[in-house]
């Protein structure tokens, strides 16, 4: 059977990019990923894209047309917010392994920093949260995660200071990344002194609002320019639960999953089972960090940290040289968060890590990386375990 690999990755300039359009940064990331794979544009025969928030539902076709890719045997959108490119990765892998495509391009980009997108426009276009039963009460995206955080505190005894540890460590990683938006170190006190956005979440608990684009190419093993730089899929899983906060709170009625006991464990169990690996085999992890609390529930539900212990885990084990370096590029909290494609940057970093190309951020000897993506208030997750080439 054909085995799929991640053959190449690319990122545009990130942060504030007023000089390029959304299409401009998307093309930039796509061409870099295709070149990184040692392929030509004409080798691409599949494309999956999350249309930029204010763009046409046919945006994937427009992007392919702009790049000059005429015939595709897979051309589709993946509109699941932050989880999109984790979900799309599994789809691209299946497309290559089934023979549907040879080289699938996944690309996305947003201009959230300089693109004049209002909060309400984003809510409406991305369908992040419900417009009939929730938005009329003044629920913004941070307030959703704040409701999660407050309940998480109640159930686990964790505190604002515990969540702050996640922001502090993520910033420490960003300090080693010249491309990160924010690099100056912060302390727990800094996080707690930053303004409340929606209690108990402070500004420094929240991810950034950035411009940027990223891309990766999924190809058949051995088909790229340099098989030694191909990154292998060791395991991949996804899970989704509900949508409205009330429904998430009620849970599945099985006593196992609810608002603060997410279904990321289901995605994780599947990925780990496929890989035959254990938690201790993971060298570096990218845990989707739309908010600090998003990281907390995932680290706990995936079994890396004990209940309520995610903040302490991050502080004690999450640094370079620690048991499990987490979000070594600086994450959505400090590197960049250009909307749905922000999660792609975690995959790009994981690829860099297992290829040994992460420069000052390199986890020594990293061969296995775990990457999560998440969306819709911790209801939709993917877990991917990626490995260095065994070519």
């Amino acid at each position: 059977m054909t085995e799929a690999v991640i053959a190449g990755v690319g990122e545009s300039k990130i942060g504030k990019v007023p000089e390029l359009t959304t299409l401009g940064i998307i093309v930039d990331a796509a061409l870099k990923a295709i070149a990184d794979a040692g392929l030509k544009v004409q080798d691409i025969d599949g494309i999956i894209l999350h249309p930029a928030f204010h763009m046409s539902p046919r945006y994937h076709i427009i992007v392919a047309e702009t790049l000059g890719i005429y015939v595709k045997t897979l051309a589709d959108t993946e509109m699941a917010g932050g989880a999109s490119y984790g979900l799309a990765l599994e789809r691209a892998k299946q497309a290559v392994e089934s023979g549907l495509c040879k080289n699938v391009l996944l690309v996305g980009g947003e201009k959230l920093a300089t693109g004049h997108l209002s909060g309400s426009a984003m809510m409406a276009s991305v369908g992040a949260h419900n417009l009939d039963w929730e938005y009329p009460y003044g629920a913004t995206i941070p307030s959703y995660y704040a409701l999660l955080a407050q309940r998480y505190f109640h159930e686990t005894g964790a505190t604002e200071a515990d969540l702050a540890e996640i922001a502090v460590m993520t910033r420490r990683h960003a300090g080693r990344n010249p491309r990160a938006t924010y690099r100056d170190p912060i302390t727990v006190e800094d996080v707690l002194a930053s303004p409340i956005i929606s209690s108990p979440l402070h500004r420094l608990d929240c991810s950034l609002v950035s411009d940027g684009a990223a891309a990766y190419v999924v190809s058949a093993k051995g088909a790229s320019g340099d098989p030694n730089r191909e990154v292998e899929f060791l395991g991949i899983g996804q899970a989704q639960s509900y949508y409205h906060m009330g429904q998430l709170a009620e849970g599945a009625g099985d006593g196992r999953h609810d608002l603060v006991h997410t279904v990321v464990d289901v995605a994780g169990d599947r990925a780990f089972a496929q890989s035959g690996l254990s938690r201790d085999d993971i060298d570096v992890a990218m845990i989707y960090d739309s908010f600090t609390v998003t990281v907390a529930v995932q680290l706990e539900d995936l079994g890396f940290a004990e209940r309520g212990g995610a903040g302490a885990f991050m502080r004690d084990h999450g640094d370079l040289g620690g048991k499990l370096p987490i979000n070594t590029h600086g994450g959505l909290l400090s590197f960049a968060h250009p909307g749905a494609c922000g999660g792609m940057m975690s995959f790009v970093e994981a690829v860099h890590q297992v290829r040994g190309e992460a420069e000052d951020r390199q986890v020594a000897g990293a061969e296995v990386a775990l990457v999560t993506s998440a969306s819709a208030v911790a209801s939709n997750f993917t877990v991917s375990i990626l490995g260095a080439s065994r070519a």
Partner: protein
Amino acid sequence: MGTIHRPLPTITPDHVRFWEAARAGRMELQRCNDCGRFWYYPGPVCHYCSSRDFTWTPVSGKGTIYSHTVLERAKGNPFEDDVPITIVLVRLEEGPVMMSNLIDYEPGELRIDAPVVVDYERVDDEVTLPVFRPAA
């Protein structure tokens, strides 16, 4: 708390009865005639057993706070000048959990498990939103 500049729900045949009741100062939910459970938000089928046999039934309007947040910054949203806005998840006595606002409360009353009771905020001729206040 003054009136919030609220983005309004789209009222459809699935839940027009809910909004009619709210306008009249009542909360009515669908109760399943097969499994007996109430569900929220209103919709065409029992969320628990898939039955479409239900009866619109008045509920007590009492519940407890499941979680809460005070929104302080909402730039770019229609209600950005209305902050702070207190958003709660309320577990109704009848079982379902719903998002709403808590109004007219003292600081100590905004806590998980605190008892609350429904009240109504008229927004326009069509929409009256159920909100909650501390139970006396």
